[in-house]
């Protein structure tokens, strides 16, 4: 066996998660496996309910898989559970940014203070060093002293999302998971955040898992994409190949669904029906 010179940031194998609702069992994620190398960015795409958020939640330990294994830099994620030190270690392993930035910011605190708190929690004792690091992190996402002092609700949506990204980067995680993190932003502001993500990729070795239903955005941020459909992986390939020559009929449908001039929603609608004749229209 050859040894890999660069250990994978994330190694996910055979991940499965089922939910039981009203007597019925829903397989939210089924036999999901992938590897994320340092500096890589994996897009996870699929329609609503395909299992994207469930996957993201398992990757940060918010949800316990029914089967399968998540290794972060070779260590099982499941080991990072009990005790303060273990929780901090897990936070350093994987951080997440949600669609709603309020989930990772403290509504009663200036965003600078929130980031300062995260740094303190992770053992940066010297206040001057922390202040410098807060400024550096905010500068990295294009925010200055004025924004540092502001409460989250006094910032624009894009500034808030950039602050949430700075907060996630504060603990220098190995992997950053973004669940529809740019979907709610206005396009002009979304473009600012997308450029920020590509700068972060260029400047750090951080690995990204980027969940989105927008294929064009996935193309911009990621080098690989994984298509989920009802929890199952249909294809996992370099984005460029996937877009140029989608193999699975469902991937082709997903691509055809992206609006463009001359677009024919009628044909998409009937193709979707023929892929899933017994399914209800979504």
């Amino acid at each position: 066996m050859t040894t890999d010179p660069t250990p994978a940031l994330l190694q996910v194998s055979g991940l499965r998660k089922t939910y039981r609702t009203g007597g019925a069992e829903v397989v939210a994620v089924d036999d999901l496996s992938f590897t994320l190398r340092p500096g890589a960015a994996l897009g996870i795409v699929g329609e609503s309910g395909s299992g994207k958020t469930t996957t993201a939640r398992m990757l940060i330990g918010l949800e316990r898989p029914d089967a399968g294994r998540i290794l972060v830099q070779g260590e099982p994620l499941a080991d990072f559970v009990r005790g303060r030190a273990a929780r901090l270690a897990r936070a350093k392993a994987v951080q997440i940014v949600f669609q709603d930035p309020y989930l990772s910011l403290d509504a009663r605190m200036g965003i600078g203070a929130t980031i300062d708190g995260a740094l303190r929690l992770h053992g940066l004792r010297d206040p001057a060093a922390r202040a410098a690091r807060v400024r550096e992190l905010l500068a990295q996402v294009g925010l200055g002293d004025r924004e540092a002092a502001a409460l989250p609700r006094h910032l624009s949506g894009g500034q808030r999302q950039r602050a949430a990204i700075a907060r996630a980067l504060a603990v220098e995680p190995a992997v950053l998971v973004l669940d529809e993190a740019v979907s709610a932003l206005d396009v002009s502001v979304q473009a600012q955040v997308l450029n920020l993500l590509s700068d972060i990729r260029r400047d750090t070795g951080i690995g990204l898992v980027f969940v989105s239903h927008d294929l064009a955005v996935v193309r911009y941020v990621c080098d690989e994409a994984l298509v989920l459909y009802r929890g199952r992986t249909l294809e996992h390939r370099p984005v460029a190949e996937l877009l140029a020559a989608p193999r699975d009929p469902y991937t082709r449908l997903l691509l055809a669904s992206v609006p463009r001039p001359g677009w024919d929603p009628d044909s998409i609608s009937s193709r979707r029906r023929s892929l899933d004749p017994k399914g209800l229209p979504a």
Partner: protein
Amino acid sequence: MPLLEYDALGVTLPGTARPILDGIDLHVGAGEVVALVGESGSGKSVTARAALGLFPAGADITGQVRVAGTGLVGADAASLRDVRTNRAAMIYQDPRAALNPVRRVGDFLTEPLRLAHGWSRNRAAARAAELLAAVGLPDPGRHLNQYPHELSGGMLQRVVIAAALTTEPRLLLCDEPTTALDVSTQAEILAVLGRLQRERGLGLLLITHDIELAAAVSDRIHVMYAGRIVEAAPVADLFAAPRHPYTAGLLGSSPPLHGPLARLTPIPGAPMGLLESAPGCAFAPRCHFAEPGRCDQSPPPPERHGPAEVACHRTAELTAPAANAPAPAAFHASGKEDS
């Protein structure tokens, strides 16, 4: 006579620095799909609601908006009721918010027919089933007895569209009807709307922040910024040659699905809130081409440039192929990098 016609509509709230809407001119004819595009807070929803005679409480209204000839500014209760129950219907972004979670889909659909039109229960139920079939729901009888939580977002949006059709309006006001849905479900909902528009000759005002979606399905696009329409043009023209720097900036902000992938050129900063104002062009603080002493003096009035109406002091020189003007290529990828 257009189905829907805005005539210099202005809406101003006391205590704000700029109008919510300023000089809105727009019309939708029968069988036409007209898109209104802009970022959040630009005034799209206020514009749509005005077509039902709904204005923010306490606002000062100028100009007029007419539905099938009936003016809604200063309208009496009878004309408002007529427009809202017979002529126009609104479809909102979040179908779940439109339905009462503890009432069945059937009640939601039949109540307007029974209350406003005095139909019998059976006649209303038959009509409701017919409409559910028309929006592509396969099992109308069953859906009538279901509760909202038993249906997916896309199915619920079909129910909302069916409800909008109960009184056979000629005009559908669609306020971000697919923003909460994934792309393939979005395609399905637009297929339904497109079919209705063709088969019934409906006029559609489609409100969206997605300029690509607007381009894919509409005849004309109006681009809105800070309460004003900054550019209005037939779709093909607007895409091939945007004439307002904001339109060009929007187009340069979405990454392409195919073709070369250059770094995005975002419009710097953020849209202007109601408590901010600018003496000149509202876009000037974010505009790459703002010219001090000119753009910051007076708001640019809409002017005709070819097939488009554009409100920009510099459109003529920016889009001219003259040597001393910025190259069109540079203009079309406009916007300075955000700091």
